[in-house]
């Protein structure tokens, strides 16, 4: 079912993309770059939602914390964020593991509202901790490679942000291999479908949850390190990404990780499409709400018919 949905979404996208490509290539280029960024932040959140069935409202804040960690390391040592990426991911993995062990685990059987309040509280905690430690002033690291650009004919555009597209694709492929080829991954997949059934066949459900949480935190930590190469950071920088990630996952359908790529492309390209006109530039932020509302409305109408 998810496959069929992905295919139709893919076809519609392909047609739209071709049209725009001919007419205004930068819309597509920047749209894809934005999509890469959205998707690579949303995918780890989708992993947690698909397997642990927890909406982590502190997801964007995890990334923000990782960005500050990267900032601190790189400021102190002069290291490039790409070198700090692995240590930062290791730290956030450990952090995610601890958060799971100390908090999430106790709320697994609690009503959903309690789980939301818990992760929302974590988000506030992280934001305020960043405020205390770094103040609300924006921080930035500058690198020359970020402004790399390419000229084709009279078209000139920045290429650095394609790194996010590469990361998003690598995440989808990597997760697929992990979930279908490795013993721990298969266990996580089984736990995501039926935790009780998984325990009955000898899978340590608690371990699978902890592992999933740590893995997703490592992925978003890695994103935090890459994020700071091109954006300034401040304590609230993560929260819009929590929102967008959640909506992209809802659009794709829970558990449909490749679908997050498709919904991100849809969002990224439409946003940049509006930004291409002076008259609609201000509207770009609304696209997101229009998309999410129409997708969910469409799905519930289709659901009622079925």
């Amino acid at each position, binding site marked *: 079912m998810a496959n069929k949905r992905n295919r139709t979404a893919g076809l519609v996208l392909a047609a739209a993309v071709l049209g725009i490509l001919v007419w205004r290539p930068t819309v597509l280029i920047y749209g894809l770059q934005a999509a890469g960024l959205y998707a690579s932040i949303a995918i780890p959140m989708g992993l947690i939602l698909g397997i642990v069935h927890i909406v982590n409202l502190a997801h964007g804040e995890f990334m923000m914390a990782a960005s500050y960690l990267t900032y601190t390391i790189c400021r102190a040592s002069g290291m490039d964020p790409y070198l700090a990426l692995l240590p930062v991911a290791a730290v956030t993995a450990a952090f995610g593991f601890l958060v799971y062990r100390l908090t999430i685990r106790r709320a697994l059987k609690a009503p959903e509202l309690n789980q939301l309040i818990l992760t929302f509280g974590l988000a506030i905690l992280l934001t305020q901790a960043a405020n205390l430690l770094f103040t609300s002033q924006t921080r930035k690291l500058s690198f020359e490679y970020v402004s790399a650009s390419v000229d084709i004919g009279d078209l000139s555009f920045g290429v650095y942000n394609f790194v996010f597209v590469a990361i998003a694709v690598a995440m989808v492929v990597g997760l697929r291999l992990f979930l279908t080829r490795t*013993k721990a991954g*298969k*266990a996580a*997949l*089984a736990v995501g*479908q*039926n935790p*009780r*059934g*998984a*325990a*009955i*066949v*000898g*899978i*340590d*459900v608690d371990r699978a949850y902890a592992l999933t949480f740590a893995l997703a935190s490592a992925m978003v930590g890695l994103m935090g390190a890459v994020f700071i190469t091109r954006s300034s950071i401040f304590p609230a920088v993560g929260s819009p990404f929590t929102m967008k990630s959640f909506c992209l996952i809802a659009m794709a359908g829970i*558990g449909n990780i490749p679908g997050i790529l498709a919904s991100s492309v849809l969002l990224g390209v439409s946003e940049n499409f509006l930004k291409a006109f002076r008259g609609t530039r201000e509207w770009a932020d609304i696209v997101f709400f229009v998309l999410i509302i129409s997708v969910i409305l469409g799905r519930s109408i289709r659901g009622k018919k079925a």
Partner: protein
Amino acid sequence: MILEIQGLTCGYGKLPVLRDVSLSIGAESVALIGPNGAGKTTLINAVTGLVKPWGGSIRFDGRDVTGHATHEIARAGIALVPQERELFPGMTVADNLALGAAYIPRAQGREERLLEQCLRLFPILKERFRQIVGTMSGGQQRMVAIARALMANPKLLILDEPSLGLQPSIVSEVFDRLSELKKDVAILVTEQNVKESLRSVDRGYVLENGAVVLEGAASDLAKDPHVEASYLGL
């Protein structure tokens, strides 16, 4: 004794369900019969660690497993066919069966032989090997659940209402196969179908209101006036 339960009490929240239940299983098959709500599933849940016992002890294969986690108990050699089946609905029959063996030490290296045995028991699963389990009928899913449990090469197989939703001809076939299996595997089975189950097991326990009220050889139980009146409809 493979399984030895002594003085087990347990329940949900503050509601007690089982009161001082003792039960043991050797190299044999045992039926657990009783009316709806007697606590049969609760007893099974306590054995498999799905609910925490309040008191008493459960020993499996000479080891105390009281209150152990479900996955540890599964790895020790108890396979369960739950009343609610608890399959992986989005996966194929093949994947569900593979998961039955993948995390159980006793099944390692024997997956092929175990799979062959399961497909011989339920030939329909061979035809439906690549079908997504969530799209199968209730009875077919019941077969997948039984096969998945057998993939664990268990020392003790627990079946909670295995015939629920199965057509009568398959029910007697399942019981015939179970009596074949019991040469290698100890079996604990709960059944609404008391007649069929007492025909194919060695011993039985009657559980009413959370307590064992009768126990004995299956042939004796089948003749017991209380069992006849309450469960055999004579």
